[in-house]
């Protein structure tokens, strides 16, 4: 079974040369740390920066340079700043190649819910609805089950939706899955995790075809 860093490491393998990538808050933010250093990638944060770098050294912290998670960050050579409408032109206009975000629930037809628990928690959708409605390449990073052990991979989302039929790939602490017309197709197992365990933790339709390899994580 993977921890959050393991999930981030596995997703980092999906980041290809010359990609512009938008990272959501939480596990997705960690992905930047594990991307192959030999490829050219630029990270976009929807609050208005492209070419985002690592967290600053203590003495370089600048309150005017943050990411969408409100964390202080730095810029890399080639970086640019822009306004919010321009930022979403990049997103809506499909100029961003890959979107990685967290989720509370995903259904086996690719619907995603991640912004609201009615009567309990309302944080808002932020840029997630714009991202999932427009991006062609969306990977969800999340735990396979919630805190009380219930599956987050469902037949149908129970929470208010963020977007319809949009998730392409899911990387959890247990597995890598692809959303297909017949449901969640199991692509890889986390190290030491059996297909049986994944079946038990998946409430939506699960497709298991042939040999399922273990993920390779350095």
């Amino acid at each position, binding site marked *: 079974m993977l921890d959050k860093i393991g999930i981030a490491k596995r997703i980092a393998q999906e980041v290809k040369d010359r990609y512009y990538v938008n990272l959501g808050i939480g596990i997705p933010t960690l992905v930047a740390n594990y991307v192959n250093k030999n490829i050219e990638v630029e990270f976009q*944060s*929807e*609050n*208005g*920066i492209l070419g985002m770098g*690592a*967290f*600053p*050294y*203590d003495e370089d*912290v*600048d*309150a*005017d*340079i*943050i*990411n*969408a*998670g*409100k*964390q*202080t*960050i730095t810029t890399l050579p080639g970086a640019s*700043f*822009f*306004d*919010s*409408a321009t*930022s*979403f032109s990049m*997103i*809506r206009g499909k100029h961003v190649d890959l979107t990685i975000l967290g989720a509370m629930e995903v259904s086996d037809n690719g619907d995603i819910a991640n*912004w*609201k628990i009615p*009567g*309990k*928690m*309302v*944080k*808002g*959708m*932020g*840029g*997630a*609805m*714009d991202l999932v*409605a*427009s991006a062609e390449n969306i990977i969800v990073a999340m735990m396979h089950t919630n805190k009380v052990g219930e599956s987050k991979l469902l037949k149908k989302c129970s929470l*208010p*939706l*963020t*977007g*319809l039929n949009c998730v392409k790939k899911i990387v959890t602490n247990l597995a890598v899955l692809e959303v297909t017309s017949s449901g969640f197709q199991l692509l890889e197992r986390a190290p030491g995790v059996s297909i049986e365990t994944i079946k038990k933790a998946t409430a939506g339709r699960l497709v298991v075809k042939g040999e399922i390899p273990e993920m390779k994580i350095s």
Partner: protein
Amino acid sequence: MINKKLLNAQEALVGIKSEMTIMLGGFGLCGIPENSISELVKLGVKNLTCISNNAGVDDFGLGLLLKDKQIDKMISSYVGENNEFERQMLSGELKVDLIPQGSLAERCRAAKSGIPAFFTPAGYGTEVGEGKESREFNGKMHLMETAFKADFSIVKAWKGDEAGNLIFKGTARNFNPNMCGAAKVTVAEVEELYPAGELDPNEIHVSGIFIQRIFEGKNYEKRIEQRTITNRQC
């Protein structure tokens, strides 16, 4: 040159009354009009509708207006950092319209640009789309979103000149340029205000035509919500 310079927030916010709709720039606490928010607290105007991406934190930014119950309705995309906000929303004291961040930015830009409405795929098939006109373009469903209507727009920039030209710094830019000119009156507060002619016209981010009032703010706190750092390894 048409001079827009005023002395302070008190002068710049003349005419703001209870019940008005006000746009405020900023993302989290980054690039928020701190001086103007303090002045709104002082003015004690009530029942405001505020259009702003976030709602501040409990004791800073728009959180200060929430604490004093000056806001009747918030139009935002993300409000996760504010406990008082969540309490007022869940108890029904505060009306909240949560909308996708890109739609929020574009509804500001549309208001600024004389575009009454536009179509976007964001939110289609979700509760955001309930009651909204939808239409198919290129085989994909889109929602119609309308331009905002606001009485005042209050933005924060790094540098400005008396003509109202603005330059922003870093990600403190965010919604500020989109809100300039998106209301009947746009007030800009800047960290450094220069005489006309001092700023290079090539470097201007927002032209002064979109700004009616400008003043130099003071004592910027620039609070950081998540101070994240890299440790130096020797």
